[in-house]
């Protein structure tokens, strides 16, 4: 993840324009737009998506391929099962949000440890 955003070739503009065309093409279909909405809620398997969109598996595969080519969706395997392919929306969380999560987690880990020392009579 996070592979995008580092385009440093001279023909970057042309490739960007082609990528944009693919993305818009991917979004031109209402079923694919609905798939994007569903994936925005949470990652899903192709089977789940097909069920929710009322599509046969081959049609779902076609749509997912279009969404992947459009740079909107990516697939991966959850840690617990390499056989399962899970689709999710592409692009990472913002650095700012990640920073907030990391700092907040560090803050509470620190404060809860301090609380433990206090409540157990250390201080």
């Amino acid at each position, binding site marked *: *993840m*996070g592979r995008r955003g580092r385009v440093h070739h001279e023909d970057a503009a042309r490739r960007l324009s082609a990528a944009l065309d693919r993305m818009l093409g991917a979004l031109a279909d209402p079923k694919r737009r609905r798939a994007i*909405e569903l*994936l*925005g*809620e*949470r*990652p899903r398997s192709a089977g789940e998506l097909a069920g929710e969109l009322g599509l046969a598996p081959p049609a779902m595969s076609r749509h997912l391929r279009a969404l992947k080519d459009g740079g909107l969706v990516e697939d*991966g395997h959850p840690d617990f099962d390499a056989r399962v392919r*899970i689709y*999710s*929306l*592409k*692009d*990472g*969380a*913002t650095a700012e*949000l*990640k920073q*907030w*999560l*990391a*700092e*907040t*987690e*560090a*803050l*509470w*880990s*620190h*404060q*809860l*440890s*301090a*609380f*433990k*020392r*206090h*409540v*157990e009579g250390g*201080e």
Partner: protein
Amino acid sequence: MTAAVIVALRVGVSPDVAFDAFARDIGMWWKSHPLFQLSRKGDGVLRFDPAGPDGRLVTRFDDGKEWEIGPVRHWLPGERLAFGWRLPSFRADQTTEVDVRFEAVGDETRVTVEHRGWDAIPQQHAARHGFELMLFQRRLGEHWRGLLKAMGTGL
């Protein structure tokens, strides 16, 4: 968009004692961390004012100025303490909530802090990030669990 941080710790007292100490002694046990301060002026001295369901979490800085971190949402002694959480650095449209639960585990208490929020990120943008965020949060959780274990705090 709601992101969440969950940190849990076990303390060797009953839920009632843990709740009271958490709520009433917060000015004593809260220790400013050099890297994660609540504001540029440090953390100040925190208190629930008044200590009860209608209270607010307030901090008082060294210069005498006060900052309301957030209102109390739930005050259930021995069970649950929830409050809003806004720091001076937050943007106007950014709010977060802290929910602290106290559960008996044998004769000890598991204290779980769940801090969620970050609604300021536009929906359109935030909607894209489910999976990576999930992985990121899980890794973060593992990191801190490891650290706490190493400190012998017995998660």
